[in-house]
């Protein structure tokens, strides 16, 4: 029983309560406290992660407490490599988002004094953020399927309020769409969770004990379907993706980062952890249709992104394309591809996070998300433009930046997969590689229209990034470049977990060992 994870989960929620209980008018203190608590969580996570042994048991820092004995539910937490890196991603992003959202709730005024968004409760925003952090840690740490589900669904609520209360003009439509979409998927998953419990008959929700519990192939397929639809909506996979552009475009930039950077990862994480390991036969049976959906997502998301006029929607569509890659990697059933997919989840969080935040800073200066309202930012705000460009390049997976490694691994792993239907996987990887061209088009076209060219009249008044904003983007860019050249620390943690997953799916995992140059 290790107290680490419960402590990690407790710190932000304590912070949330403290922040919520602050007296009126202590907005600044609320921000500072939120930052403090999120940094504390980050430090604690760092200390914990330092003690993680990649070669150790599958779930480390495990803890198990009885929660609802009547339902056989335990408060069971523990992390494997994939979960650990995703928790790390979350706790890194939260303080950054706190800094980035520093003034988001203070209302938006354009240069000429018209109020775009009125002032809103600062305390509420930041306590929601901290609550969300707890849930993000919880959802990745849960080793009890029921507990996972609880966090999976409960996460929607703080995000719903963050979008709905603090978002743009269409915020309530976007928030409701987000909530209902996710809720619907979640409820189907609930049925599957119950079904899993009932059919497994082992009177427990603990993940390790449920692995291999369902043998009946037909039942596996039904349950797999319940889980998968929920995760596909969350991820989001074509054709259930249309909530994301709305939600991401309307959410404040910080919330959008957490939404796309972390919340959506729960979907792909769930596919990797639950869909594959609990229902291996069904996962194999459904590989082909899912791969097709993933490839459609990749190409379709990229093409639709090209046609967007709103920066945040554009970024959201690029994410749909990227999530296609992750799903492809998960279901390619090869260790390279799956490690790549897991790594992609992290890298995408950094890359898209940076892109959303940089776009957010742009938008905050102009009050408009539309690309056509910009131009020539490079001239007046070179720092902002530089960060925006780097983030964009990370978005198009430029080699040397972290997202390249993962995209490369996913594609090469898919291409070389020896899993069932590997011929089709080869084709899928080939088609998905076309996205490298489309990615260049959507990112660089946006860059060209916003940063380059003659400076548009309203842009001339732009101030370059201030210190706070630099502190928001610099760590992300450092991580993007750092992991671009040294992905090993992450991969060393991820690989054993992926091997374990594949073992549970009964896929031989010798690809690396046989072909590898390094071992």
């Amino acid at each position, binding site marked *: 029983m290790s107290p680490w994870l419960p402590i990690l989960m407790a710190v932000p929620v304590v912070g949330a309560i403290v922040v919520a209980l602050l007296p009126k008018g202590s907005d600044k203190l609320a921000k500072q406290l939120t930052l403090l608590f999120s940094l504390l969580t980050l430090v604690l996570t760092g200390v914990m992660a330092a003690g993680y042994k990649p070669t150790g048991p599958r779930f480390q820092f495990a803890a198990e407490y009885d*929660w*609802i*004995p*009547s*339902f056989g539910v335990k408060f069971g937490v523990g992390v494997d490599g994939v979960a650990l890196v995703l928790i790390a991603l979350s706790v890194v992003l939260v303080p950054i988002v706190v800094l980035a959202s520093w003034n988001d709730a203070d209302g938006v005024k354009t240069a000429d004094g018209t109020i775009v968004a009125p002032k809103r*409760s600062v305390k*509420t925003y930041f306590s929601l953020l901290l609550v969300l952090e707890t849930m993000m840690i919880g959802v990745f740490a849960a080793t009890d399927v029921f507990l996972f*589900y*609880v*966090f*999976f*669904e*409960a996460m*929607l*609520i703080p995000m*719903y*309020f963050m979008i*709905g*209360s603090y978002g743009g003009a269409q*915020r*309530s439509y976007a*928030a*409701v769409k987000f*909530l*209902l979409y996710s*809720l*619907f998927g979640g*409820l*189907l998953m*609930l*049925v599957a969770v*119950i*079904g899993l*419990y*009932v*059919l497994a008959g082992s009177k427990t929700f603990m993940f390790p004990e449920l692995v291999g519990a369902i043998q009946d192939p037909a039942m596996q397929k*039904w349950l797999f379907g319940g889980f998968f639809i929920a995760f596909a909506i969350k991820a989001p996979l074509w054709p259930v993706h249309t909530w994301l552009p709305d939600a991401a475009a309307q959410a404040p930039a910080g919330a959008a980062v957490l939404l796309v950077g972390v919340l959506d990862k729960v979907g792909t994480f769930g596919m990797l952890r639950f869909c594959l390991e609990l229902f291996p036969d069904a996962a194999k049976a459904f590989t082909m249709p899912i791969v097709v959906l993933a490839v459609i997502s990749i190409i379709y998301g990229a093409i639709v992104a090209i046609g967007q006029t709103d920066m945040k929607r554009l970024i959201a569509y690029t994410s749909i394309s990227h999530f296609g890659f992750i799903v492809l990697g998960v279901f390619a059933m090869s260790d390279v591809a799956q490690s790549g997919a897991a790594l992609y989840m992290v890298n995408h969080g950094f890359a898209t996070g940076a892109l959303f935040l940089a776009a957010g800073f742009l938008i905050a200066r102009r009050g408009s998300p539309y690309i056509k309202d910009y131009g020539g930012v490079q001239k007046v705000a070179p720092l902002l433009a530089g960060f925006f460009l780097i983030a964009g390049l990370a978005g198009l997976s430029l080699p040397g930046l972290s997202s390249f490694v993962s995209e490369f691994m996913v594609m090469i792993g898919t291409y070389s997969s020896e899993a069932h239907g590997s011929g089709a996987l080869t084709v899928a990887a080939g088609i998905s590689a076309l996205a490298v061209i489309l990615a260049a088009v959507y990112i660089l076209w946006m860059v060209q229209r916003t940063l380059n060219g003659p400076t548009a009249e309203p842009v001339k008044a732009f101030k370059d990034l201030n210190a706070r904003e630099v502190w928001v983007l610099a760590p992300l860019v450092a991580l993007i470049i750092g992991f671009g050249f040294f992905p090993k620390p992450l991969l060393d943690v991820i690989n054993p977990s992926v091997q374990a997953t594949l073992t549970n799916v009964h896929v031989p995992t010798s690809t690396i060992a046989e072909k590898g140059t390094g071992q």
Partner: protein
Amino acid sequence: MNSIPAPTIEYGTLAPLLVVFGAAIIGVLVEAFAPRYLRKAIHVPLTLLSLIGAFALVLVQVLRGDVPTSAVAMGAVAVDGPALFIWGVILILSFVCVLLINDEGHFVASAAAVPGSADEEEAEAAGAGGHTEVYPLVLFAVGGMLLFPAAHDLLTMFVGLEVMSLPLYLLCGLARRRRLLSQEASMKYFLLGAFSSAFFLYGTAMVYGFAGTVSLPGINAALAKSTALDPILMLGLALLGVGLMFKVGAAPFQAWKPDVYQGAPTPITALMASGTLVAAVGAVLRVLWVGLGNLDWNWRPVIWGVAALTMIVGSILAITQTDIKRMLAYSSIAHAGFLLVGVMATFGTAAQNAVSLKAILFYLAVYGITTVGVFAVVTLVRDPGGEAWHLSRWAGLGKRSPVLAGTFAFFLLAFAGIPLTSGFFGKYAIFAAALDSGTQAGDSMGGWMAGLVVLGVVASAIAAFFYVRVIVLMFFSEPAADGPAIAVPSMGTVAVIAVSLLVTVGVGLYPESVLGIANDAARSLFIR
């Protein structure tokens, strides 16, 4: 000459019931003899104390641990584990509702006076605190609620039904504002209620004709003996079902609910939405399990259809409602549908029955308390002419009164079944029980139950839409310039909201607290 043997009455076991009825009768006497200015001062403590006392007596029985294994009062009343649990829940709910009723301004000073007439003004001027007969009426209704689910034969059940309903018919008509609506609600409730109880009674007669007895175990025994299915029995069952389903508010017998919930004074709506529903579901369970246990293959498909229809009708119709109470009424219909899914699961082995029973009891408890909290909040949001009933008036409430709006939002999320609220675990328990029973019953049944659960899930998703819509209005819309005022709540109302919130949050975080009790109650099963 045959001597008629004196009936044996187990006073100890029936004490909670007797306390409530006794207090009610004393209340009537107070109405008759106490001076007007004293009445309220007597009624309030009397009512509250009697409810507390009754609850304490229930508690004593539970703690003593010797739950009776046979029916008391010559087989008329069964005070078994589930009944005690339901009693406890009803007593808590009604206690909380009485706190709401206590609040000023919900009830008309003189029910008989024509609205806007001189009579009314006079009564207003004279009576501090409106109609004090509300208290004994409520006590009678609560007594009926206690009797209804504990009745061990159909006659007692009928009597319980009427004792519960008759005071409620009257209470519905006592709203201080919007008198016309209130009276209309009262009349509709009365006529339809009487109509449906006539069906119940005729059904009882048919069953009596088939079984030769109205005692529930007797009926079950008769069912076990007969091989051929008697059309008279089927007719009887159907008509019994009409009466019960009417009280539960299941489709297609739900039509009264929106009208009555909307027109009734809000505290009474709260009582009906929580207490009556609990009692009615308890009675349904008892009839189906104790009386018709041997016929489950026949009634189950019918309940399947009713449950499905109820969930769908409740959720879909709620979407376009603009009156907050009316919307909550439809929500209540949808929840009745969910409960019926649980009822569907009460068959098979005793162990399975206990699982399902536990789920339903848990659901009833947490749903009831959240419901009272919701209506308590509704009473606080006021326009000059009374409660702000139109949903558009709720726009921007989150800005004006974040705590109240936040609480309300939390209740709505609990209704929607979002995790970390009590409502989620309720829904989970029901669905889990349904799937579990389906699997154990075998192949085709498993599929049917899974289908019903998926339907329930779809209905939940639709239902979530209208809960969320209210949240959108409260938090994401700008407040209207002349928005409703938030009444300064009385201590009672604050207590009600606080208790509901506490339970909804507490059970949401640690459901075992209530689940454990429900489990104990359900384990002993209904006395058969």
